[in-house]
């Protein structure tokens, strides 16, 4: 199918893009990599009058080192993130998640910012950025503001980004030396996760000193498994100890029911996969 007709703008600066958003209000849609927006337009689930393409705004691309954190530009493609040495060194959990995100074609087009702004509860970037306490930098007509991950994800397909605002970058604190694992549960390789667990741990010898755990598709937004994190702190990195902590993975979650599984099954999966993800992040193989 072809999308309904729309006008197309390709500004070269963030200011121009924001100005266009202000002018066209809810008649406008931002286009990043188009991997989610274009299917929506082509299936005519949405028909904006204006499409504002961020593709020509150079400042939105790339990853840089900003001292205690990394800055990932919103228009950096998944493929660039995947192969970025800084990300690999300082935010291994992100690399691990992106490895399993969609397929090579989609990764070459889709963007880090686009995926997060889209806020699909099955998206693979929400749980890692939430677990890593990333900060979302948003620019609008009244300037730039920073939103912590815990406040960024509002609901199904809904974020803290206002109608006339743009997500420009994501700041990820450095987790040097932390082990990381993204356990994605799918039936076929190119599928969105049925659920996934993002885990990163700092070991002190054989003890888990700190852990961060985020869950994908266990609710309408990414979820932080704080009960698991708390239970893990100070525990030995053994299957038994981790299993006990992981038993809390589904606490307080309300996962969806769909063709791939109902809520009860997802809750069960969360406990099993959390155990596996944490052990793998701690470099302990097996179950």
């Amino acid at each position, binding site marked *: 199918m072809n999308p309904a007709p729309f006008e197309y703008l390709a500004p070269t600066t963030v200011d121009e893009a924001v100005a266009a958003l202000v002018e066209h209000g809810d008649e406008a849609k931002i286009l990043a990599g188009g991997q989610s927006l274009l299917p929506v337009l082509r299936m005519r689930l949405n028909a904006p009058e204006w499409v504002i393409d961020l593709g020509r705004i150079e400042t939105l691309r790339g990853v840089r080192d900003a001292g205690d954190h990394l800055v990932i530009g919103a228009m950096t493609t998944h493929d660039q993130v995947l192969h970025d040495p800084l990300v690999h060194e300082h935010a291994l959990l992100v690399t691990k998640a992106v490895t399993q995100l969609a397929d090579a074609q989609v990764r070459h087009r889709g963007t880090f910012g686009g995926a997060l702004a889209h806020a699909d509860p099955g998206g693979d970037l929400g749980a890692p950025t939430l677990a890593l306490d990333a900060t979302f930098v948003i620019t609008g007509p009244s300037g730039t503001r920073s939103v912590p991950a815990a406040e960024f994800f509002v609901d199904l397909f809904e974020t803290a980004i206002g109608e006339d605002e743009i997500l420009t970058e994501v700041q990820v604190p450095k987790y040097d030396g932390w082990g990381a694992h993204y356990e994605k549960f799918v039936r*076929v390789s190119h*599928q969105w996760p049925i659920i996934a667990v993002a885990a990163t741990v700092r070991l002190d010898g054989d003890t888990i000193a700190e852990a961060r755990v985020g869950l994908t598709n266990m609710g309408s937004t990414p979820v932080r498994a704080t009960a698991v994190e708390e239970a893990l702190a100070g525990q030995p990195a053994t299957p038994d100890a981790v299993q006990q902590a992981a038993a809390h993975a589904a606490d307080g979650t309300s996962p969806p029911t769909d063709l791939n599984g109902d809520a009860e099954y997802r809750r069960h999966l969360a406990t099993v996969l959390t155990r596996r993800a944490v052990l793998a992040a701690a470099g302990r193989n097996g179950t």
Partner: protein
Amino acid sequence: MTATQEPGLKEAPTQEIGRDRRRKEDQRLITGRTRWTDNIVLPGMLHIAMVRSPFAHARITGVDTEAAKAAPNVVDVFTGSEVADVQGVIANAWPLSAEQKAPDHPPMAVDRVAFAGEIVAVVVARSAAEAQDAAELIDVEYDELPAVIDLKRAAADDVLAHPDLGTNISSVWTLDSAEGGTGGNVDEAIAEARENGIVIEREYRQQRLIPAFMEPRSTVVDPTGEQYVVWSATQIPHIARFLLAATTGTPESKIRYIAPDVGGGFGGKLQTTPEEWLTFLAAKRTGKPVKYTESRSESLMSGHHGRDQWQRLTLAATKEGRVTGLKVDLLADMGAYIGIVGGGVPVLGAWMFNSIYKWDAYRFTTTQVLTNKTWVDAYRGAGRPEATYGIERLMTELAAELGKDPLEVREMNWIKHDEFPFTTVAGMTYDSGDYEAATARSKELFGYDELRAEQQRRRDAGDPVQLGIGVSTYTEMCGLAPSRVLGQLNYGAGGWEHAEIRMLPTGKVEVITGTSPHGQGHETAWSQIVADRLGVPFEDVEVLHGDTQISVRGLDTYGSRSLVIGGEALVRAADKVVERAKPLAAHMLEASPDDLEFAGGRLQVRGTDQGVTIQEVATAAWTAHDLPDGLEPNLDASATYDPVNFSFPHGTHLCAMEVDTETGRVRMRKYVAVDDIGNIVNPLIVSGQVHGGLVQGISQALWEEAVHDEGGTLVSGTLVDYLLPTAADTISFETDHTTSPSTTNTLGTKGVGEAGTIASTPAVVNAIVDAVRHLGVTDIRMPCSPERVWRAIQQAQKGAGQ
């Protein structure tokens, strides 16, 4: 070449049949140079968009097309009620009997829609985008009617899919060995087994599938010449031409149907579609070329679906495990309409439930049921995968009941290699086969005993990842089909096939086949056959197909028929060419035709080195300067072949699956397919057919399912939800062959197009159930999603705990 060689005498070409030649058609296909239907652009061409019903069952009370008509560059808009008399009908060509109840099937709904996705209006515009924009402006008013979605509920007849028919039961068809004289009475066998033996009763579900060919369906119709030219992404250009003429009143001679390169079908393009008929109508109305190409969403929703049965099975056996009888009761979902052969697809299972086994009594009943869903028709295997699944699951359950190895129980019951030809309890005569040999080879490749030992170790250790081994010893009947048999089954056409060979003046050869390849590689295989038969180089043979102006006669490609029937026609045509060449060759050699022998492309005077190549004779026939009196200057020949029997490939497939008991996720560990498909023309092509077939069958076991909600909306309406595997989701299969040549065709070949799909589904499910049987699981419904596997384990454990 040495200088002493005689001019014109080339070294005899090496044998082509059996060579693993790469497919010559692939160069144009994989470099994107080919012409698919959607690539065709004609001057002044218009485009179509369809308006489709969102309701599964509704009366159309009004269609407002005014805004659409006024939209930019819209040329024509029409609705079902406006074209009711001229749009033709979509054929139901296999009614089974005169009693069959079938709703009228107009290409576009006239006053009532019977499934979500049915076309209610057509917009014709200068571009596809403009047609789609205008389609959005059409306002259709519906009065929703009660819809019946669930197959079992439909069979109960409390809500009617088509109220005028008075029932949802379209037809009931029975084969009974006692009545047919091919065996005993099954009820007696079951009663006896209840007394003194074993009775296994099961109900299995064959979920609904969607044929997901790579190229969406597409049609272009050019009405500007003397003939209407129809290009279509179809498997059946010849049948479609006949039906378009028969149902629209257009003389057949005024229609030229072309299937250009077609990107896959799997039965999904074995149909005359509403979209083809309406594109034809739009071209007729506007006098301009018109194109329609479906979107993937339209394809999933309104291209026909496959399978969709409930199977109630009762198997009777002695205490030792010898099967004495099987009773089959099928409920088959037809969807909203009876497709071109959909009414008969379940019936094909009648001869397949008995598979490779000998037993005394058999009764097969299938009930075809109408519902308010997309209609169901042939999908790779058509009726045989369903049957094979049922019996191979059941034989495995029998083995489990007896505590015996599933292969041992099969062997106890199968036809021995020295018993062929064998007439089965269903009345079919199998020409050849060797189940012992295929099974022995398969076990060897699989490492059967080692994997059984590993399975035991994992069980003993209580490993969270358990291992299971699944067996499928299948046979199938393909090569549709002897025309006489089809006639007895009330099928709308014959089953012959046609081939023609043109000897060109330069000695090159054009082969025209009535089969219609859409990915199978016929151009290569047919060239190999003709190269051998005529002794000409492979490169000198060109295969033409799919255009009714060139390939005048044919019955197209489906049911693994092309090689076993079309190939035989080809062999016969080639032999006729040689016969026709003999008098002229004899004349050229000043010998008697009776003294000539033909080998390696040369007609040679027996016992001498005097000879001419058939290509030289072709040139001599063309110049016609020196012919014997009364001889026609033409070597071309054609043959139409009607098969005497079906083709019965068979094989033993073994599958090992790992089951993660904590999550229910399964992983394939090993898959061995040993197939006996008779003699092989091209092993590489066969390998492609087997691998692709396996994946399709495995995919039914693990991933694919068309799901409708209660309102009849297809929930798995995009490829996000209708799960298809990619190469990343499968493992490398081990394939091999044993060979029992067919005795019913010259080349000794059997069909291979559907074998992998038919065999693999039960092998996979048997393996999964085997992995968790010790936990109390006896069945898991397909597709065996992680959730279903996990739940099956949970329920079995709960049951065990009580």
